[in-house]
């Protein structure tokens, strides 16, 4: 295994050849913001929040998909990056109906805490206020499209870990929606095994345990590491 040495935020770090900048940075305590990445699932570079500056390159790069290179000089937190991240989060907030004070995920939402961390106290864009449904046809879970940011964590966990591939994305651009099977109500899905993994990985209040009230939704993601290491390394660690 080859090891590369590089600089991230003026810190000398090392990582295995082929590892993404994002992963190496986190291993060294440098927490690059993200919403679509979650450890244990493949990366898709959908949210663009983990963009970094690489010396010698004009374009920003998504750190979750960019492998490290020997001698690379990376910056993860510059005024330019902060501006971009703010913009992205504001656009996400304006795109659907995010009203944190009456959301099941209030207080435990990755979008909300990222907005707070970026100092977003208002949104510069006009809200779209789309009319979107809530699907509570499943016996145990609900999907509120109003809170979905299309990160596709649910799609990937269902496909890669559970193997059911219930979820997918339909439509284009801002009109995209997460669908179960071919667009049936979730409760009628034949592929869903009701395992609840999607609910646990959702970063926002979009997927929730039915019966949860405002600010009551909390998630447990320990299962991801457990299953992934069990599969890859045949080790069953808690």
């Amino acid at each position: 295994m080859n090891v590369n040495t590089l600089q991230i935020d003026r810190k000398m770090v090392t990582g295995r050849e082929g590892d993404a900048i994002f992963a190496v940075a986190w291993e060294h305590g440098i927490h690059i913001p993200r919403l679509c990445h979650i450890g244990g699932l493949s990366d898709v570079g959908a949210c663009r929040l983990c963009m970094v500056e690489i010396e010698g390159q004009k374009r920003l790069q998504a750190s979750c998909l960019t492998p490290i290179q020997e001698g690379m000089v990376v910056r993860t937190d510059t005024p330019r990056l902060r501006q971009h991240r703010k913009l992205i989060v504001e656009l996400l907030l304006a795109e659907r109906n995010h009203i944190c004070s009456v959301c099941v995920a209030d207080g435990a939402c990755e979008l909300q805490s990222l907005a707070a961390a970026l100092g977003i106290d208002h949104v510069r864009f006009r809200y779209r206020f789309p009319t979107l449904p809530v699907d509570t046809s499943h016996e145990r879970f609900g999907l509120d499209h109003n809170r979905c940011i299309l990160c596709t964590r649910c799609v990937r966990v269902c496909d890669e870990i559970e193997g059911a591939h219930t979820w997918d994305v339909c439509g284009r651009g801002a009109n995209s929606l997460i669908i179960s099977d071919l667009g049936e109500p979730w409760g009628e899905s034949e592929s869903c095994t009701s395992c609840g993994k999607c609910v646990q990985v959702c970063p926002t209040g979009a997927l929730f345990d039915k019966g949860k009230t405002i600010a009551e939704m909390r998630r447990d993601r320990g299962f991801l590491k457990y299953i992934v290491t069990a599969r890859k390394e045949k080790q069953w660690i808690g």
Partner: protein
Amino acid sequence: MAERIQIHPVTRVEGHAKISIYVDDAGEVTSAQFHVTEFRGFEKLCEGRPFHEMPGLMSRICGICPISHILASSKAGDMLLGVEIPRAAAKQRRLVNHAQILQSHALSFFHLSAPDLFLGMDAPPSKRNIFGMLEGDADFVRRGIRLRQFGQRIIELVGGKKIHPAWGAPGGVLQAIGAAERDEIRSSIPEAIESLHEALGRLKRVLDSFAVEIEHLGNFPTLFLGTVSPEGELEYYDGLIRIGDAEGNIVADGLDPLRYASYLGEASEEWSFMKLPHYKPLGYPGGLYRVGPLARLNIAKSAGTPLANREMTEFKQRGKGAVCQSFHYHLARLIEMLHAVESIEQLADDPDLMREHVRAQAGQNRHHGVGSCEAPRGTLFHDYEVDDHGLIRRANLLIATSQNNLAMNQTVEQAARYFVSSRAIQEGMLNRVEAGIRCFDPCLSCSTHAFGQASFIIEIRNAAGDLLQQITR
């Protein structure tokens, strides 16, 4: 020339309002109306949302009495689940409801009405407010502020937040109470009782000087509606509806709050965004009734706690039959605060309060749920219809302040006729008209479920509707 006097915005009430006073050619008042100029559509915006969200969503209607909305909404949710909630949850809900009555009444009495009561209706407006009170008697005002804080602190200790706690939910409440919280609540009780005795003493001493206002600010016969316990005592969380008349007779008793729509009608008029509820068997507007502190004290036979009981017996002697003078809402409010503090003490000593099991788990078992409770300003109903998947199809809220709407209109007209003449308008006259409204402590944000800061306008118009004078505050 006939004219119309408008009071707009109405001050020291919670929300936006306007009063129109119509005068004839001789400058005498012919009629008056109390308009609520806010509009908000909470019923509409909860359509399509899961009913489990309703307590938190509905609590956003109001920053003064969010707890009442949480309770009525949670109770409607309990009914949709078809469960009986754990004892600890019911006791917590009662405790927090009393705390809410205490803090809301303290705001109404000490912050909004005390300036009229203790500085006088004709004191200059710049002084006639809580700051003017502070100059005169800082200790008394501080007691009032501390009473309000006590109520808010209980809400914070139990719910985790002062104003919009994430606490109540269908099936119970979210967390159990610890011993430290309970002990802190207990420790504040003696001071609260002492403050209320002082406030009661003071109010009773000045009442004689308000003989004219007592007589002419909303003094008329109506029905009174509220919740009572099975024993006919004061009840704020869970009981049956009783309706009494001005003579003190019981007109209807043991009415199921779930069936409110069968005996309460809601009319609407173009001059106000507020609905006009009335007792159906007597029609509109004949079925005029009042709710809130005065109504509750009129219909209950006793308070159920010793100190409040004593005050209530004395209170009842102020009327022949029922106490019909709206001015006595103030006194009724203080007695209710005393009852609230005594009830808080009893609940703090109740071992059930501390039990760990606070939430009943169940799926949806019904399509229609109604929850009611006594809010500070009167009886509150939340009524939800949900689809097979628990999404709200239709919601209807019957709010305390809107149930007093007809009575407030009548109060404004009575006060205007007696105190106002367009020939020589004095500020004190208009303040009396406003004070008539303040007796009811209306919360206009709640009753229209509307946004807004407090503002109050009085308009004077002639018979043709031309504006002759407008006073804005």
